């Protein structure tokens, strides 16, 4: 009987980072477009745009944390 367990954990870890990154990308795409629009309309808003753009990145970090723990389980 082959043990699928570790393999499935590894797949889960990959999904955790990958899907989180996909979600972040989706969120950033519309924020980035809107942010560039704002910067074109109004000067001096670069700082705020950068903040807004950076907000969803935390999702990837959370995905990474989950993956880290999953990989820890595998060992």
């Amino acid at each position, binding site marked *: 009987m082959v043990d699928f367990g570790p393999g499935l954990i590894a797949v889960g870890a990959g999904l955790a980072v990958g899907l989180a990154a996909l979600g972040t990308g989706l969120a950033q795409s519309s924020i980035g477009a809107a942010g560039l629009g704002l910067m074109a309309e109004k000067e001096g808003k670069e700082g705020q745009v950068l903040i807004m753009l950076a907000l969803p990145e935390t999702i990837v*970090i959370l995905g990474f944390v989950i993956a*880290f723990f999953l990989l820890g389980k595998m060992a």
Partner: protein
Amino acid sequence: MGKMFEVEPMVKIRVLCAKRDLEGVVEGLYEFGAIHVTRSKQFQPGRPLEKMEAVSPMLVKTRALESAFALERLKVKQTPSGHHGSHSHSLGEMQERLAAIAPEKAEELARRKQTLETRLNDALARKKELAPFKSLRLNVNEIQSRTAFLEFALFEIQQDAGKTLAKAREYGSALMLEEERQKLKMLIAMDKRKGEKARHALAPYAKEVSLPHSASESFAHEYAALEKQISELRLQLSQAESEIRSFVSAHGAGIVSLRKALETEFKKAELPSKFGESELAASAEGWVALNKFHSLENRLKEKLGDRILVEKVQTSEFPPSKLKNPAVLKPFEFMIEFFSLPRYNEIDPTFITALTFPLFFGMILGDIGYGLVLLLLGIAIMRKTTGALKKIGGIMVLSSISTIIFGFIYAEAFGLEKILGFQLHPLLSRVHEEGIEALFALSVLIGFLHVTLGFLLGAWQGVREKHYKHSYAKIAWLAILFGFIAFLANSMQLIFTNYLQFLRVIPSPFDLGLFVAGIAGVVYFEGPVQLMEIPSLFSNVLSYLRIMALGLSGVALASIVASIPLDFASLATLQPGAIISFVLLALLLVVGHAVAIMLGLLEAGIQSLRLHYVEFYSKFYKGGGTQFVPLRED
């Protein structure tokens, strides 16, 4: 200590003077320089100085000369007289300087050059048009106008020249013209009545183009005349150009420095439109640094004696913000300005940012080799540039030093554990599992400390503004954070809390008690809606894990590049194959490291910045201050 976090203390001043002393006051204020002039609300709105009417047309004329002779690109050394000391230029002196330049003659010269250029371009275009006919010794137009039955047509041959020519000769006499850029042209003389038929027959092979007109006796004749004209025009143009060159070398620098002087005088003449004036008196207002008030007062008194009154004004307006940090920290002011300037009574976070930004940057990149490259790059940018880029160079220098230090801690140099043959020994390895786990916990610890510091600064800001409610709310948030993490440390064995074990001094069940008390505090001081922010409080702390995560991906990239096998011994064989593969691998190694450095710089820079902007500043900093704009930059 508190001074490090403050913006420059300002005082609003008002200068009252007699209207006839207005020009003296303007000169005095301008010499002093470090004043942010605001609109005075006393009396009637002021008008610019009278000399404006003389200065303005002179400025227009000098600017026109500058653009006509493309002097913007001219590098003009600052003459000592135009720099410090005598900031005043008398109107007469400037008029003399302008007259010495002889602007009318110069404008005429520029116009002449332009006319010549236009004529030359026209002639060249016509030459191109006539080129296929250059040996045709008859005037087609004239013949055509004289005869009733003959018609000339010009075709551009698309395919099969021989066949087309044969076809054309069925309708009249056809002549191949000289080739011009692979485009064969054919001139046909034919019976007018056959014209339509001929065009129809030729349509698949050739495209009819319009026949040029010539007033001369033949195309060949005009072409020859044109060539002569072009060489003449070229001669005249080169003469005009050499005249312009000698004009620019004689007057170019003078024009630029005169333009600068005129701009200064224009600004001065314009200044009183911000003042207030009555029939006899005038009033000027503005902000100056508190410690410079007396030097301003003395300067004006020196100039105008007792005829002037300088006073401090009580006002409820917000002063403009001027950051005051020591030179080492100055580059980091750029980050604050990029975010938003502090309001006058707000904490200036430059000092803290200058400590923590390089720390995070170094922790992420952490490589001796990459740090050295960035150090050199940063120094080069600082030396070669000005303004914002120079500040970025300064930030890079400090950040790269921290990168080198962390490079020793991680024992990484260009992705390897050795440097110039010396084996390095890591204090904390990002390659081995224990090291990675330690870095994980360390990142959480740093996040915890940074966020805590943010809340403490927020509480302090509340005290400074006497908004004690804000301070209590920040403390309540800290209670939530401390309570929850103490709870985790007490009840679970998590890698998160490896370095946060010290929070176990809060024993169970006081940890949960603290947590609940914090929630109650937030509800009381900020309202229940704010409880929505609790998850983001913890995600803020976890967000610092990017320090470790980005570091690991950077190490992976660097070690992949470092694993490119570069075998110096193979060179000794002197075989061409070995040498070529050595060169290609060396190139790959250099490009690979360059990419890794660029990515590292970008990622470490942006992510450290983000940790400040999003996770840190949100706890205490709002910004929104207005910039202090001095009358004259030093």
